[in-house]
């Protein structure tokens, strides 16, 4: 009797398939969600870029992207309005990117984006980025140079993240109070370029709002390393004595040192130790001796320190504590932090970059 009952019980576990099944052919996989304001009011203008594989029965298939533009007071309202004009069920199961306009970014965008956590089956590994241009116009193009717009944008982002040149801005890190402690962060920024778009550094946010200040690509890479990114053979190209050098970052180690003076902070040291491979120095080929390496190390240190000073100055000017130094002070000197107004103090704080360079080798040549 008991044995006969067992298979019946197992089929019981399949009951939910009767109600909560999703038919694959009816699902519309939203690849990119673009968010902007419609006109001058606070109504959201949302673009859903839906990716699909056409003619899949003929082998590899043809990837295509269709964009639907809709308006709504919130993300859920926009989804509901899209469902009225598009047959099928929108699914966030494969959403890879939330792209926001600069206008929307200036108005505490995370408050609206919090609702994305309520999308069922939302993987939350989607990236968050800013587009400094006409968002609807970019996303309305199904293909750019024969590549679907979603593949182009995601290809650029993922490639540069893998190369350690830009930070990974996953949505999960920011929403629902993720940036609560110091609500300052920096998002990857796209700008229009020719027919499509290109990456153009970081957009700086202060207290949850886009400041309008940006870091360029070169500054972004250095800021990323100063924020604790690992060495991933990133290329650094710099100038020295009227010429230029190219190095690859093998290892990177970042440390903060808070130097106190009485009841306050004298300065904060952002120390960055880099193990480099020098692959190009001047246009002439030179053989490297120990002394040459030493002199090169010093020159590169000076060049990178001056660049780091500029990065920190830009961050302080925008009042964007991208390195979360406030959190560092609160964690290690909680009493001191409790007495200070970090938002007011941060732009005036002495932040000193200390860069140590160690040239490991000159690539595969002597």
């Amino acid at each position: 009797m008991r044995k006969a009952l067992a298979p019946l019980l197992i089929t019981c576990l399949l009951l939910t398939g009767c109600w909560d099944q999703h038919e694959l052919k009816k699902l519309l996989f939203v690849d990119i969600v673009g968010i902007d304001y419609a006109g001058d009011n606070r109504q959201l203008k949302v673009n859903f870029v839906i990716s699909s594989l056409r003619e899949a029965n003929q082998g590899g298939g043809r990837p295509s992207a269709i964009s639907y533009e809709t308006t709504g007071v919130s993300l859920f309202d926009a989804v509901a309005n899209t469902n009225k004009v598009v047959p099928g069920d929108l699914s966030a199961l494969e959403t890879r990117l939330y792209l926001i306009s600069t206008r929307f970014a200036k108005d505490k965008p995370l408050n609206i984006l919090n609702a994305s956590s309520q999308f069922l089956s939302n993987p939350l590994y989607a990236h968050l980025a800013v587009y400094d241009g006409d968002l609807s116009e970019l996303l309305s193009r199904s293909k750019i140079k024969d590549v679907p717009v979603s593949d182009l944008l995601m290809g650029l982002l993922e490639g540069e993240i893998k190369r350690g040149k830009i930070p990974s801005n996953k949505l999960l890190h920011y929403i629902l109070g993720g940036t609560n402690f110091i609500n300052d962060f920096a998002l990857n920024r796209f700008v229009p370029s020719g027919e499509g778009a290109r990456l153009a550094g970081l957009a700086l946010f202060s207290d949850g709002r886009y400041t309008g200040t940006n870091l360029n690509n070169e500054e972004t890479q250095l800021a990323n390393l100063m924020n604790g990114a690992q060495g991933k053979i990133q290329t650094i190209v710099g100038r020295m004595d009227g010429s230029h050098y190219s190095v690859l970052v093998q290892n990177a180690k970042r440390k903060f040192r808070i130097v106190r003076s009485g009841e306050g902070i004298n300065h904060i040291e952002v120390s960055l130790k880099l193990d480099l491979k020098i692959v190009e120095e001047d246009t002439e080929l030179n053989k490297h001796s120990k002394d040459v390496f030493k002199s090169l190390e010093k020159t590169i240190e000076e060049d990178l320190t001056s660049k780091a000073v500029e990065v920190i100055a830009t961050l302080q000017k925008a009042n964007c504590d991208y390195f979360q130094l406030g959190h560092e002070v609160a964690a290690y000197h909680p009493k001191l932090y409790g007495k200070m107004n970090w938002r007011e103090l941060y732009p005036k704080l002495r932040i000193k970059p200390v860069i140590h360079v160690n040239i490991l080798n000159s690539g595969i040549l002597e």
Partner: protein
Amino acid sequence: MIKEESITGRQLFAIVVMVQLGTEVLSLPHVEADVAGQDTWIAVLLSGLFAQLGILLIWWLGSRYPDRNLYTYISTIVGKPIGLCMNAVFGLYYAFSGFLLTTNYADVLKRWMFVLSPWWILLLMLLIVCGYAATSTLRSLALISQTMIIVPIVGFLLITLSGTYGFDAKNLLPVLSGGWNPVMKGAYAAFSSYVGYDLLLYAYPYVRSRSNKGLLLWMSIANAIAIVFYVAVCLVCSTMFSLRQLTYIPEPIVFILKNYQLEIIQSLDILFLIFYACVVLSTIYVYFFLSSKAFMHLRKNGWGKQSVWVWAIVCACFAGGFFMTKRSNIIQVAALQDQASVYLIVVLPVILLVLSTLQRTMRNGV
């Protein structure tokens, strides 16, 4: 005494681990965030150590009556009328605990996955499987738990490996910023997670162990595993989410698993929630089993059949489930159950131990 098949020390270990790990793995960091803040892991660790004291207490009590379970020796200590009443209270407590766990897990499934499936189907699905298992012997339950133990092992690996996706140790600092008071409150809140070791109250005489101390060793190892599991879960969640995020996200583990981006498996969080049923059901059927045994011991030679009691409990739970559709009700009732746990598995064994010592002293004195 009603007959029961004996189990080995290893089987006791498996069954206790599976009972101690319940739905709290999903929600503990969220519950603790409101109480203990960044010191969650200390509170959970302390709570585990308190549970170890509880194990010692029950082991000590059990070693006084090595041939009998709690339901039979309780009448010897407190007298027959009170003993029978206490058996009834234990029966109700375990039935209620199983009921609460079923509604809690059904609520998680309903919110995360089976949005359209009727509530009663989810309840019925879980209750029938648990009821079927609970009609077995202690040895059969132990064998099932031994088989299922692979699920928490895989779950543990998934959770701890997700920590490599970026964590911030600063979230744990400063340690004990609010003093010991929030930590102690947090330890109380976390105690219900470790409940399950009280199985020893019933199982003590049925464990075939080389020595009395061997039994204690198996119980302590099981508790140590539960401590490591819970502390690791809390550490991973606290370092990956901000405190604010943890207060908003009721099941942070599910959010962490949403962060996994794998080419071959989609939505690891959903898979985890489904397979986690093995862990939750292991707890529920043990509770139903203990409840039915308590009711059977309302008479010296056994009152009714185990299967009848189990299915009666299942029917009562199913009927009660219709009144627990609101999440706030489940949380409110869970707080009551937390209090009942402390009274029944900590305070009561202390009282019984004191009374039994007094009885022995008086007997020896006479």
